[in-house]
């Protein structure tokens, strides 16, 4: 796999605030890499340096072999950018927007299929100001894909969208990757990162504190799973602590919560409850998420 984006010792300060403090990572072709962290962690600044919109204080950046700050239009021809905050003239229509932006590029995709792919073809005669938040976001993604770019940068893609629109957006991103494009995105939704990213860089205070696949990051916590069963209040608590995978059990009204680790935990606990005739079919499994990884690495919750 060839490297599409490489970031080496990136530093960027705004006055006394070190927004980015020595960030390093690489993105391979066809990969979705996510920069994940709370607001103000330095994700957007990092991304905007890579897009050539901000000049780094120091560090070496390469995107498709070019220095983004110096390459100018030559690089911008080959990348697609969705900015965290941007806008279009309120009275500019969707189809006109694509037509205008297409004139900035040497080559561009036909507008209508692109709008169809993004589900806003019926809005092509609507003005930007009449679009809903989700539709605006789709238009910005259409603009990011218009020049058939090799790398796509998505900054806080789903912020401000309702859960349904967010899921539709995730499918879009997976679609972009299926076309062989490389995606670098930022998000402060851990669920989004888990769902979309091949690898996740957890960013805090301008540094990367962990970088791996979501599954590997969660495994590295070696956190306990929780199995939650419904259990009639009258029923006696079963004895499960003899199982080597189980560390402790908790009784909470009509709930039985079993804590433990290991690959056979669920099997063995369910088997034991079934033997005791206590299995009601109402079972929920909770395990660590990227949210817990963040908490463990930084000692803080993501959103505070």
């Amino acid at each position, binding site marked *: 796999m060839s490297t599409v984006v490489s970031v080496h010792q990136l530093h960027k300060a705004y006055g006394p605030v070190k927004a980015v403090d020595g960030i390093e990572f690489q993105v391979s072709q066809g990969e979705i890499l996510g920069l994940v962290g709370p607001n103000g962690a330095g994700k957007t600044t990092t991304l905007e340096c890579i897009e050539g*919109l901000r000049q780094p204080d120091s560090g070496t950046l390469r995107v498709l072999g070019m220095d983004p700050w110096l390459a100018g*239009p030559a690089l911008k021809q080959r990348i697609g950018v969705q*900015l965290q905050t*941007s806008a279009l*003239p309120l*009275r500019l229509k969707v189809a006109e927007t694509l037509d205008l*932006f297409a004139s*900035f590029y040497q080559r561009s995709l036909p507008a209508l299929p692109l709008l169809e792919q993004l589900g806003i073809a019926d809005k092509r005669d609507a003005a930007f100001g009449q679009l809903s938040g989700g539709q605006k976001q789709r238009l910005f993604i259409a603009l990011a894909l218009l020049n058939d770019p090799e790398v796509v940068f998505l900054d806080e893609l789903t912020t401000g969208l309702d859960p349904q629109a967010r899921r539709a957006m995730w499918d879009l991103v997976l679609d972009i990757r299926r076309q062989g494009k490389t995606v670098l995105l930022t998000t402060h939704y851990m669920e989004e990162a888990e769902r979309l990213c091949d690898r996740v860089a957890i960013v805090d205070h301008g540094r990367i504190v962990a970088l791996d696949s979501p599954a590997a990051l969660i495994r590295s916590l070696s956190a306990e799973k929780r199995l939650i069963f419904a259990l009639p209040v009258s029923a006696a608590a079963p004895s499960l602590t003899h199982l080597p995978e189980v560390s402790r059990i908790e009784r909470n009204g009509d709930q039985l919560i079993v804590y433990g680790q290991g690959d056979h935990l669920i099997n063995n606990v369910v088997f034991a409850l079934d033997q005791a005739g206590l299995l009601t079919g109402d079972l929920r499994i909770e395990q660590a998420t990227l949210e817990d990884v963040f908490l463990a690495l930084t000692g803080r919750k993501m959103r505070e």
Partner: protein
Amino acid sequence: MKSLLKLTVTNLRLYLREPITAFFIIGFPVMLVLIFGAIFGNQPSQLLGGRGSMDISMPGYTALILGTVGLLTVTINTSSYREAGILRRFRATPLSPLVYLTADVLSNQLMTLIGMLCMVIIARLLFHTHFEGNALSVLLGVILGGLSMSSLGYVIASLAPTARMAQVVGMVLFYPMMFISGAAYPSELLPASLKRVAEWLPLTYVTRLLRGLWFGGTWSEYRTEALVLVAILAVATLVATRIFRWE
């Protein structure tokens, strides 16, 4: 070239869809002629050398349009596009800043000329105004005046931290100039102190140049005015390109 054309056409389209800008550029000059024409009429007068009141006012009204477009439209549009993040969105594409600004200037100039033409035609039809100059000469004067006022607008838009501030600064500069420069009110009737202030106002030179050319004067007779406007254009363009901000 393709993007310059598309951007210019897009700007013109947006102007026509935006009631406020359309008013400033086309409605305002027409309104000027209708109101002042109704008040003063255009009877030939000995005092005015056989011309009517509207005859002598037309170049001043033209200067007013150049002032509103340059100091209000350019300032407000540029700073609010920046504040909304529209310029950021353009910057993330290969579009060159020079092409963006050229398209902006072109569309503004074109709209100005259309507004001016509407005004001249209506004045002619309703008040039978006379035009004694060379049309090409006046056209060049309008373009020079328009470019110099617009270049000041880009400087204000770049200096002001917010769109609101840019709008306020544009208005504070424009409204006094409107009356003191001779554009809306004959400078001959101003007291000496205000006449001295007028010497420092850019719009004064636009008004004088246009008035001269309108009545058949030549560029060499209005060398000073032309040179002042070229100097304003050169300095303001230099400053604006240095301090222009995309975000």
